[in-house]
């Protein structure tokens, strides 16, 4: 009955009550997941000596120290100026007012091999060749700067240089599996926001933008008489950041538009994918010795595990979060039923001839926690009848480790796939990835 709405009664009290009504939330699981993620995240470098490294203020009064510093700088500057001939003791007349010829017209620079073209004001030039993923341009009087940072794929290292005034710093945009571009863009936004204003005292002007046809964001602020502008996007999982810094007095919307609108990605002609039709977040592996083929998350690199005797093939991928074992291990035994099976406690050689014996040999972890039940489920793997052994932990992911085993026999050989649920959860892979991995499993014959 909407007619009972009490407006305009004490609205503040209404708001208090309404906001108070939400659920009480406990963040243990969220914090656990975040901390697992943090394990693989490097901290940024401080932009200044942190407090614990800073000296205590000296006894010299600040004003005196300031005057002294300015005097020293002035003397040094005059010295350098005289020696270097930069400062004219008899100033020459200044250039006259701007003429038509000085009007800065944009020019396009094409970097075919690097995958982009950029429009810079006329008279500007590239000031350095890049070996750090940064293309630097300068021009104008007083000088303006433009840097184009094209980072490494987020699925690989995600390293991208974030520049501000003269210095560029390497930052890492963490990989997300499954890859989530919006979240990567959000992370880039935070990194740039902090770069512009480490204390986040101000919220630099944030707006949606378009860069080379991609949805992008821009942040801008005016500080120290200069306008700083970042436009950034994710292109083919690579972060790209344009940073433009010009004296506020010489800032023009025309140049800005020319810069942003003129930026183009130059994509190489499409090559045929080695795995047609397959999501690029996964790579296909084929194991001739084990006689199977399957998809593995791209981010999970293969570890160089040694094959023990008594097993035809062992392949391990990824590193389980917080633990020494792999995130995914595929083990194929011999025709006589021998197979090495590894758990958190080590590896043992078993000889098994039936699915029931194989099931008996598999030890899921962790088994010693209260309320944990071992669950068995029938399934198929690569067309063969198979079983799943997993732990019911009452909805809570214990770990690490938290194994999820799928096992079968094929042509008389035992086959075991062991996935670490803890890692799946903490790398935000979840059920979708597990299904993708298992569904893709095929025996070669």
């Amino acid at each position, binding site marked *: *009955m909407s007619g009972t709405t009490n407006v305009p009664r004490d609205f503040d009290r209404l708001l208090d009550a309404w906001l108070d009504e939400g659920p009480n939330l406990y*963040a243990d699981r969220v914090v656990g997941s975040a901390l697992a993620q943090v394990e693989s995240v490097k901290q940024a470098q401080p932009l200044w000596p942190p407090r614990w490294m800073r000296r205590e203020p000296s006894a010299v009064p600040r004003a005196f120290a300031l005057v002294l510093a300015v005097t020293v700088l002035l003397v040094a500057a005059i010295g350098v100026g005289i020696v270097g001939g930069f400062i004219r003791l008899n100033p020459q007349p200044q250039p006259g007012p701007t003429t038509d010829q000085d009007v800065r017209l944009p020019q396009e620079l094409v970097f075919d091999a690097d995958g982009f073209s950029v429009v810079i004001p006329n008279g500007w030039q590239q000031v350095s060749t890049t070996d750090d993923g940064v293309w630097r341009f300068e021009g104008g009087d007083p000088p303006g700067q433009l840097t184009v940072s094209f980072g490494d794929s987020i699925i690989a290292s995600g390293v991208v240089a974030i520049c501000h005034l003269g210095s560029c710093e390497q930052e890492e945009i963490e990989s997300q599996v499954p890859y989530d571009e919006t979240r990567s863009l959000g992370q880039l936004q935070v990194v740039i926001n902090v770069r512009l204003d480490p204390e*986040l005292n101000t919220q630099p002007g944030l707006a949606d933008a378009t860069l080379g046809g991609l949805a992008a964001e821009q942040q801008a602020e005016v500080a120290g008489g200069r306008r700083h502008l970042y436009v950034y996007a994710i292109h083919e999982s690579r972060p790209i950041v344009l940073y433009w810094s010009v004296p506020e007095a010489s800032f023009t919307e025309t140049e800005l538009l020319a810069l942003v609108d003129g930026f183009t990605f130059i994509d190489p002609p499409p090559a045929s994918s080695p795995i047609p039709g397959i999501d690029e977040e996964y790579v296909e592996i084929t194991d001739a010795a084990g006689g199977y083929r399957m998809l593995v998350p791209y981010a999970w690199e293969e570890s160089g595990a040694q094959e023990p005797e008594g097993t035809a093939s062992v392949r391990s991928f990824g590193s389980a979060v917080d633990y020494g074992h792999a995130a995914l291990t595929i083990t194929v035994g011999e025709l006589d039923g021998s197979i090495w099976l590894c758990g958190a406690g080590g590896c043992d050689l078993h000889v098994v001839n039936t699915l029931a014996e194989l099931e008996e040999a598999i030890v899921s972890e962790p088994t010693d926690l209260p309320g944990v039940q071992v669950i068995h489920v029938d399934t198929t793997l690569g067309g063969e009848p198979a079983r799943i052994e997993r732990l019911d932990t009452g909805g809570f992911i214990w770990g690490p480790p938290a194994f999820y085993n799928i096992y079968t026999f094929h042509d008389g050989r035992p086959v075991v796939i062991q996935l670490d649920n803890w890692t799946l959860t903490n790398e935000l892979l979840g059920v979708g990835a597990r299904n993708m991995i298992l569904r893709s499993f095929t025996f070669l014959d």
Partner: protein
Amino acid sequence: MSGADREGRNEALDVERSLVVRAQQGDREAFSELAFLMGDRLLTIAQRILRDVDLAEDAAQQAIVSIWRELPKLREPERFEGWSYRILQNACRTEIRRERRSMPMELHRLPVDAASGDPALSLADRDELERAFRQLPLEHRTVLVLQHYLGLTLEQVAERLEIPIGTARSRSHYAKRSMRAALEADARTGNAGARSA
């Protein structure tokens, strides 16, 4: 606030500050402690801002990771609390964008325990408040949550978010005006409906 409360709060701040300084130096154990200390608070604020538990969990998780990464750049550890809210606000923005890109925002009213829900709030109030709140810009939502959920004064909100007091006032004013207008419109519609029935 009593003297004992104040003392307790100061002690908690000292602990937090010491953890922040250690975490800034790369001490993961200290950061873990800090994360558990602030986790509930970040999650609850995110939920109030986003009005969705799943999105709030994602935002809080991303915020904690960002806080770890960017912490060495925080110059004044005593400003950590407000700084962490601003990181959280950024994470909430990202979640809103993700949600908008993946699917149109739907109105999910949060479950309210009938016994604990405020009897002064009618169902229509809740719907309209929910709808109007979701129309607000993120920055306005944040101010309202800090002011009306955490119970901070506008001066404290301004201090935490490091925005001018005038900005905090105008955001609060604008946000409440929009929400009140939505409620009033609903009341008019309801009354008109009642008259015509």
